[in-house]
Each structure stands twice: as structure tokens, then as C-alpha cells.
């Protein structure tokens, strides 16, 4: 018998497929992973602590930088929690705008995931196709709120900007364009035998394990749990739209991919309905006091971000600043399952499994 030795391999924080600054300390035996430990915190900015010193409007730009791939949902988490605590009414038009931008952002986020995931697996072109289409969403956002990534768009009680003339129609034509693009993606990726080989039956976990680890979003739904907060605890005006929640069966990486791709289709459905039902006129800001003093109390709201349940917990002592602010950041919770999934796998599967979880380091580190 040949004497073999285990080797400690440092994957990251500077590694092409750790999606930012995640570091994995991987113990490997040949190419088989014996143990893996994620080391996080390289992008920690202490958003929650900073927020204690900021008033509620000032926190919004900070949330843009948590999950920078889908900043709109983060914006919504903080303003929604504040509105709940203050008992504010939000005008209908503002709610429509919020839903439209959140769903657009969900598509953008899934496109980024899809592109980078395929890049992890070794395909170059889908990444650029995904970014080409995402660019259209970013251009729409740029026109709406003046920024492509850090939107700072929502305000407590409404949204900052009304849709510029013709913007809603542009969203409508984007939906049509994107529906055509989905066919191309499926042709290029979903049917590709090498992609299937790489993802089918890899990184499997069952429903119990997913629930035990507190997974949410597509990572949970892929095991067959029908759990989408837009359906289960409808917020904003999601109860007005009809859409399906794609769920998987086996929980492997291929189904995760299919789940996310189908979510894009469902988001397009919602967008279509929202564009059709968009109120012709109306206010975009509710009646909001000039200085936001949030009554004493606590509130937790959970919303469905592209990555899972994004929660916002505010403890207020009646000041214009939160006494304590806590974000339940879905990537952080979803990452916890990684060591469990990696044990016994091959190095090549490492990037496939890590990519499948869909983490954004800004969110993991907070």
C-alpha cells in the first residue's frame, strides 16, 4: 500500500471561482476532498452596526451594498420593515413600481448567477450572453433611478422616482425580448450533455437536511419544498399576480439550475401582469412625516430575495435611528451547508457545488 498524505489547499480569497473573497480551507487527499471549512469576513463592513448610527433614510444606500447583485430587494427589506413598524400606507403606483423593479432585479440576479456558474463549469460564452441581457435591465434601472447597481431607489412610504415616460413600455418589450432569449439559453446550456454530466446527481441533499440547515430560496425549493415567501406570506402586492413556484425533486445541481431558470420565467410572467395592470396615474409617496421617528417596538419582515429569505429585524426605541438592526442574509445561511456537501467530493465538484449555492460575498459578510 502506498503511503498517501492529506494536503491542505487554500482556495481563495483570491481565486477565480469563489465569487469574491470567500476563502475555503480544503483538506484534500489526491483530488478528493476530506474536509472543507469556509472562512468568511473579508468583506465585512459592519452594516448592522453602522445602521445604529444612521437614520432610516440613510440606511437605504447601505443596504444597496449588502447583496449588490440584487440591491432592489435589499432596499425593499428595510423600507418594508420600517413601514410595518410605523404603520404607513404605500400608494398603489409605488407598490407596482416596487414589484416591477424587484422582479427585474431577480431576473438580473439569476442571469448573473447563471453566467458565472457556467463560467465556473468552464463555458465562456453563456457568461457574456447573460451579461448582455442583464445590461438591458441595468439600463432600465439607470433610466429609472440614475444608477446601475446601487439604486437607493425606495424610500419609506414609497419610491423616489416615478417611472419616466415610456419606461413601462420598455419593460414590456424587455419581457418579450427575454422570453425569446430563454429559448436560446435552454438550447445552449440546458441540453448540453457535458453540462448535464457535470451537474446531474452532484451536490444532492434532501429536504430534511435543507430545513435543518435553514436553507431558503432555490436551495430549499430544489428539494421539493414549496416555499416562496411571495406566496406564503404575501407582501407588497404579490397576492394580485398569478405565478408558479418552481420546485425540484432530487435536489441536485441541474435542478437548481432549472429552478432558477424557471424562476426567471415566472418573474417575466409577473412583470407582464404588472405592466398590463400598471395604474395610469397616482402618487408615488405616501403621507410620511418629515422626520422619520419610528415608534418603539420590534418588527421582523421576511421577503423573497433571489437568494432566499431576506429578513430585516428592527428594534426601535422611538428614535429616528434604529436601536438595533439585523438582516437575515440568505447567502450567509445558505453557505453553512457547504462543508457538508463538499466532503468526499472531487476538486472539480467544489466549484460546481459552491457556485450552485449562489452566494454573494457582500451579503455573506454583511
Amino acid at each position, binding site marked *: 500500500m502506498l503511503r498517501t498524505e492529506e494536503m491542505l489547499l487554500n482556495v481563495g480569497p483570491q481565486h477565480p471561482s469563489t465569487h469574491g473573497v470567500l476563502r475555503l480551507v480544503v483538506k484534500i487527499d489526491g483530488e478528493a476532498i476530506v474536509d472543507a471549512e469556509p472562512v468568511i469576513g473579508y468583506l465585512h463592513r459592519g452594516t448592522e452596526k453602522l445602521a445604529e448610527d444612521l437614520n432610516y*433614510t440613510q440606511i437605504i*444606500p447601505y443596504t444597496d451594498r449588502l447583496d449588490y447583485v440584487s440591491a432592489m430587494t435589499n432596499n425593499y427589506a428595510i423600507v418594508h420593515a420600517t413601514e410595518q413598524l410605523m404603520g404607513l400606507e404605500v400608494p398603489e403606483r409605488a407598490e407596482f413600481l416596487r414589484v416591477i423593479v424587484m422582479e427585474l432585479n431577480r431576473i438580473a440576479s439569476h442571469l448573473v448567477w447563471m453566467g458565472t456558474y457556467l463560467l465556473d463549469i468552464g463555458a465562456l460564452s453563456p457568461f457574456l*450572453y447573460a451579461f*448582455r441581457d442583464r*445590461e438591458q435591465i441595468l439600463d432600465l434601472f439607470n433610466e429609472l433611478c*440614475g*444608477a446601475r447597481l446601487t439604486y437607493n431607489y425606495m424610500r419609506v412610504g414609497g419610491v423616489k422616482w416615478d417611472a419616466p415616460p415610456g419606461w413601462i413600455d420598455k419593460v414590456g418589450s424587455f419581457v418579450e425580448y427575454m422570453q425569446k432569449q430563454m429559448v436560446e439559453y435552454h438550447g445552449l*446550456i440546458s441540453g448540453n450533455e457535458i453540462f448535464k454530466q457535470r451537474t446531474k446527481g452532484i451536490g444532492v441533499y434532501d429536504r430534511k437536511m435543507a430545513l435543518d440547515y435553514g436553507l431558503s430560496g432555490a436551495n430549499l425549493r430544489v428539494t421539493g419544498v414549496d416555499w416562496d415567501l411571495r406566496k406564503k406570506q404575501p407582501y407588497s402586492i404579490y397576492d394580485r399576480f398569478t405565478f408558479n413556484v418552481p420546485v425540484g425533486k432530487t435536489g441536485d445541481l441541474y435542478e437548481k439550475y432549472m429552478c432558477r431558470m424557471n424562476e426567471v420565467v415566472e418573474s417575466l410572467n409577473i412583470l407582464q401582469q404588472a405592466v398590463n395592470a400598471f395604474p395610469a396615474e397616482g402618487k408615488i409617496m405616501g403621507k410620511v412625516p418629515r422626520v422619520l421617528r419610528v415608534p418603539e417596538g420590534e418588527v421582523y419582515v421576511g421577503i423573497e430575495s433571489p437568494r432566499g429569505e431576506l429578513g430585516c429585524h428592527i428594534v426601535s426605541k422611538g428614535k429616528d435611528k434604529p436601536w438595533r438592526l439585523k438582516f437575515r442574509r440568505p447567502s450567509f445561511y445558505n453557505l453553512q451547508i457547504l462543508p457538508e456537501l463538499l466532503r468526499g467530493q472531487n476538486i472539480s465538484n467544489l466549484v460546481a457545488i459552491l457556485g450552485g449555492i449562489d452566494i454573494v460575498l457582500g451579503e455573506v459578510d454583511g
Partner: protein
Amino acid sequence: MLGLVKGLGITLKNMAKPKVTYKYPDEPLVMPDRFRGIQHFDPEKCIVCNQCARICPTDCITLTGKKHPDPEQKGKVIDTYDINFEICILCDLCTEVCPTEAIVMTNNFELAVYSRDELFKDLNWLHNNNTHIRSENSTNLMPKAGGKAK
């Protein structure tokens, strides 16, 4: 095998599609009107109310006022106004609260410099940054006739 061939067909088809890249440094990138670029500051309009400095989430604005040179007039006029673009996140909150639209956004976004010190922009620089000014800015405008803001 069929999926592989289909993929090859799709990439071949994409070769003929028009290119989507911008010719950026050769041709300036035109941003939509609402784009949040570098601020323009108009000292004539400023009433030294300090709202912008207070709302700024990163504390990048520092300003000082002085007494109005004309003893007849009440109030203050601006003396110095600096924005530190090392930490400014162009979040738009300062222009949103400004009651007189003294600080407004422009569409200019090119801020690259060789030294960090150059990112510290003063009143004059901000005043001269007067191209591509955004058309709508404040949501907190003071009524024209003066008096208390609504």
C-alpha cells in the same frame, strides 16, 4: 450529442449578431437624465441650512458659512463647501434634501485621478462642474416666497 451540436449552432448564430459593446473612451457614454454623477454646487443658491451635510450617510460633505456681507440681509452665505469623493457614494440624498437646489447632480462620472488628495473637491471645483446638470433634483423644495419649508 444533439445538445452539443445545438449549442454549436447557437454560438455560430451569435457570431453574426451585431456587437453590443460601447466604444466608450472613444465616444463618450451618454447617460440618462436621472443618472447620479458628480455634484454641481451653486454658492448663490445655498442658504447654509446644513441639511445635505446632515443627511449624508458617509459624512463626506463639510461646509462652513459666514455672515452675509451685506449687513441689511439676514442669514448666512456659504464660505467653504467640500465633498470628499474618496467616501462619497453618490447616493443622491444631499440633492434630495436641498431646499434650494444649490447642490444638484450632473451626468459626469469620470473621477479617476492619480492621487487620493485630488479627490477632495472644493467649492470652486464643484461650481465649475456645470455640464450635464440633471433636470429634476430636490424633493424638498422650499416654496418660492420664502418662509418655512412645507
